[in-house]
């Protein structure tokens, strides 16, 4: 037995007695927990631990949803404004176009054509010019073919110089002499010693060459880097592109190389003499482009390139509300080119019709179900839940079977003699088909929320109204109906949200007049490949849906969504 055990009052530490004593001593002070810390602090700590535990349980799922769902949605929003392809593919042209007055009725000056020549040459080697062409084709019909032709045609401009240099000296179309002229001697020896498997020694320009032949040095460096990184070929064995010869001509016609004494100086001197001689054939970049396609010397294509050169654009959004970018800012498209406004209107209109028919059909059923004895209501509920659980494609194919011209409904009508055999009703591939099929598909989403609200309405209110002398209609309209409105609201928002973004059913039974905006989005993703426009249309639709979702959360509360009764 220790002293402490025999005399409990002398124990120091958190015992109930000590806590009481401490509390007595500090009468005005905070209430203390058993360990002597203020109770408030202890409770806060416990609360914090509880919150952390809850968050730790939620975190894995939240991260999962954020990565695999919210991030894709964010990506789509980003794509609807992203427009880096023009600036990335034609960087020199975009810079050269800065001073170009897009409103003028003339094509830009020769410096722009020069920049475009180099840009398109590199783009063609990187196979980017067709992608840029199809991007600009969304804004200007024909741009795609112009860029395709330019990708093939820019070589012709360089060939003019290449051929003449080659006629002068075979070495101008050889890999080795060029490499000796442009490359650093150390790099050449390193490249010669390359074993063919490890990383190639990165190309380096010979010091001083960039001062004498600035353009040639840049283009040759681009060529050598491209060969090393993209093609994995040694620049010592590949003949340079014709663009390098063009650059050489430009340098020689402007600068003086007589002071040059490095390797291959005689070859360079000969070329300089050739360029200086009056027989040397030249071609201006502008003429070269005109030869490729006459549209290149019209102002339209340059205006389009200038308009769409920033990295972010509102162009897709303007497109999706039937507007376009012009010199004077956004403007409406011509009447006959407006399709999306009509499509949005139709989507909203048809969703409203579908919602309304769901209310009309769902209300009586929900009323009946909530007023029947439980056992019979459960039995009838199966008739509502079975379509709800049946595959969407099964229901859609069923409606195709029912509605088509040789379908069940037409067969029955013909059999009854109500329709002539040659006058079968057209009920599919139009708006009617979409509305009927989607009303059927979405009806359970209307009935279930209505039912859950209606089964909470006490029947005694209506009876009280009756006993006070109200007619059937008054007691329904003034007493029962107002209490069932929350159910109608919940069901309507749910059905409207679901129907506005529907894709499968309109695609199969909608034909051309019964399709929704979602079908157009799918078309742009898979057929026209105008992803930016698809993303912009999707973003607009998303905003509408989120606004409705917010309203739903406000009115019904997202926790109160019920599934299956």
């Amino acid at each position, binding site marked *: 037995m220790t002293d402490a055990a025999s005399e409990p009052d002398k124990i120091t530490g958190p015992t109930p007695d000590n806590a009481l004593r401490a509390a007595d001593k500090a009468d005005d002070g905070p209430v203390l927990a058993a360990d002597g810390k203020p109770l408030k602090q202890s409770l806060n700590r416990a609360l914090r631990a509880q919150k952390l535990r809850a968050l730790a*349980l939620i975190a894995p799922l939240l991260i999962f949803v954020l990565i695999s*769902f919210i991030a894709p949605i964010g990506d789509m929003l980003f794509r609807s404004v992203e427009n880096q392809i023009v600036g990335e593919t034609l960087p020199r042209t975009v810079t050269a176009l800065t001073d170009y007055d897009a409103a003028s009725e003339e094509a830009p000056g020769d410096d722009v054509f020069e920049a475009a020549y180099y840009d398109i040459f590199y783009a063609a080697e990187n196979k980017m010019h067709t992608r840029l062409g199809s991007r600009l084709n969304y804004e200007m019909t024909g741009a795609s073919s112009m860029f395709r032709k330019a990708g093939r045609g820019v070589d012709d401009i360089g060939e003019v110089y290449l051929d003449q240099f080659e006629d002068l000296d075979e070495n101008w179309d050889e890999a080795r002499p060029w490499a000796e002229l442009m490359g650093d001697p150390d790099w050449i020896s390193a490249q010669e010693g390359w074993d063919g498997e490890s990383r190639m020694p990165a190309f380096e320009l010979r010091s001083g060459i960039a001062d004498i032949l600035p353009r040639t040095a840049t283009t040759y460096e681009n060529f050598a880097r491209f060969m090393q990184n993209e093609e994995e070929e040694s620049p010592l064995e590949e003949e340079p592109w014709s663009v390098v010869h063009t650059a050489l001509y430009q340098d020689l016609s402007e600068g003086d190389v007589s002071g040059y004494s490095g390797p291959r100086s005689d070859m360079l001197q000969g070329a300089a003499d050739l360029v200086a001689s009056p027989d040397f054939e030249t071609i201006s970049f502008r003429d070269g482009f005109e030869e490729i396609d006459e549209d290149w010397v019209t102002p339209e294509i340059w205006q389009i390139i200038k308009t769409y050169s920033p990295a972010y654009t509102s162009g897709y959004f303007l497109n999706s509300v039937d507007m376009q970018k012009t010199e004077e800012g956004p403007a409406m498209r011509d009447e006959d080119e407006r399709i999306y406004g009509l499509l949005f209107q139709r989507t909203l209109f048809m969703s409203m019709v579908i919602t309304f028919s769901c209310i009309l059909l769902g209300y009586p059923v929900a009323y009946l179900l909530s007023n029947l004895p439980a056992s019979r209501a459960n039995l009838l509920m199966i008739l*509502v839940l079975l*379509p709800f659980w049946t595959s969407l494609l*099964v229901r859609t194919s069923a409606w195709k079977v029912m509605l088509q011209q040789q*379908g069940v409904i037409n*067969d029955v009508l013909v059999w009854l003699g109500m329709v002539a055999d040659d006058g079968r009703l057209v009920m599919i591939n139009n708006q009617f088909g979409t509305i009927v099929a989607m009303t059927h598909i979405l009806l359970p989403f209307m009935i279930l929320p209505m039912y859950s609200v209606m089964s909470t309405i006490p029947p005694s209110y209506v009876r009280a109204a009756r006993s006070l002398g109200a007619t059937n209609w008054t007691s329904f309209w003034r007493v029962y109906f107002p209490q069932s409105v929350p159910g109608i609201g919940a069901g309507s928002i749910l059905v409207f949200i679901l129907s506005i973004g529907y894709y499968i059913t309109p695609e199969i039974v909608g034909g051309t007049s019964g399709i929704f905006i979602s079908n157009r989005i799918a078309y742009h*993703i898979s057929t026209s490949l105008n992803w930016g426009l698809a993303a912009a249309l999707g973003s607009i639709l998303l905003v509408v849906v989120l606004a409705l979702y917010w309203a739903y959360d406000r009115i019904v509360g997202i926790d109160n969504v019920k599934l299956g009764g």
Partner: protein
Amino acid sequence: MSEAILTPIEKKPMGFTAGVLALAGAVAGLFIGTAQGSGLLGVVAGAVLMAGLAFLAMQVLGEEMEKPVRWAMIAIVAIAGVLLGGPPGLVVGALFGWFFGWFIYWVGLGRYRERLLPYLTGGQVLWHYAFRVICGAIFVFLITPILVVMPLSFNAENFFTFTPEMLRFDPEGYSLKHYRDFLTNPEWTGAVKNSLMIAPVATLISVSLGTLAAIGLSQSHVPGRRAIMAILISPMIVPLIISATGMYFFYSKIGLVGTYWGIVLAHAVLGIPFVIITVTATLVGFDRSLTRAAANMGANPVTTFFKVQMPLILPGVISGGLFAFITSFDEVVVVLFIGSAELQTLPWQMFTGLREQISPTILAAATILVAISICLLTTVEILRRRSEKLRGMSPG
């Protein structure tokens, strides 16, 4: 309420019975008449015939002869049906005969008031039954498309419609060839296999993560609960076409487009809201003191979860899982966007089949899917009732 109040039923005046029957006969006669060529003749003949039959049954033969009269009606009208419309007429005729036999006595003897409150006026009684007929029509609208698919899937021809042989109930007109095609054609079996490989894994992911999160969400102090809930439910609210578009862009960046795991992840996300909703609903009725009691007796949190909490919320977890499963099993938009030729699922196969009108094998697939969904529906209903019984909320 019908046990407490006995509504006296009495025989109605002959004029009333004959009038109602004549009206019903006229409506039926209109259909038969137009089918045979003359609507007007049908209306008159139907009205006269039914009024006469009502008089015969009520005044001449009386109540005791009810059974023989009704059988006779079925037989006579069925024979008349055969004469007018062949084998399909037999079925329709028998149904008409059965209905009118029942209707004559129901109206004539005033049985329609049996289950109603005694003080209702005639108009109210009429409205009561008219309302039921309207509701019945809506139920027919709900269920007919699903029922129509079933017989058509036994079609011997490659049509999406009833052939004359089928209507004659000729065995020649029926066959199992579409089912054989469904079960042997590699396109379809491959699609079923893909669906069965994707859906369970996606379900497993959404159920395990979803259940944990639902338990976290049901704690009393969760900061930002509303916002978290809104994010977790959003895959159900955002239109599928938008989700699919975003996933197509994003997943192609990280190399998941056209891969098995890409589809599994997408389907798992789409199934999560259903798991969250059902499991949180079950947790509302969960008694927290049970976990405290378990902890008090020395169980660690993991043991408490598996031995105490899990068995009680299992019905909710399973029905959430079934929802997630059917979401993945039925999903087509995302698969169309981020799937590939080797990863065609059953809905994809059905969708392309419907767009290109290939063969009624789709209907065989549809019938099998309806059978599966009936099984799932039954399971979910049983689980729901069991869970309600556990919580003492339902008398049944």
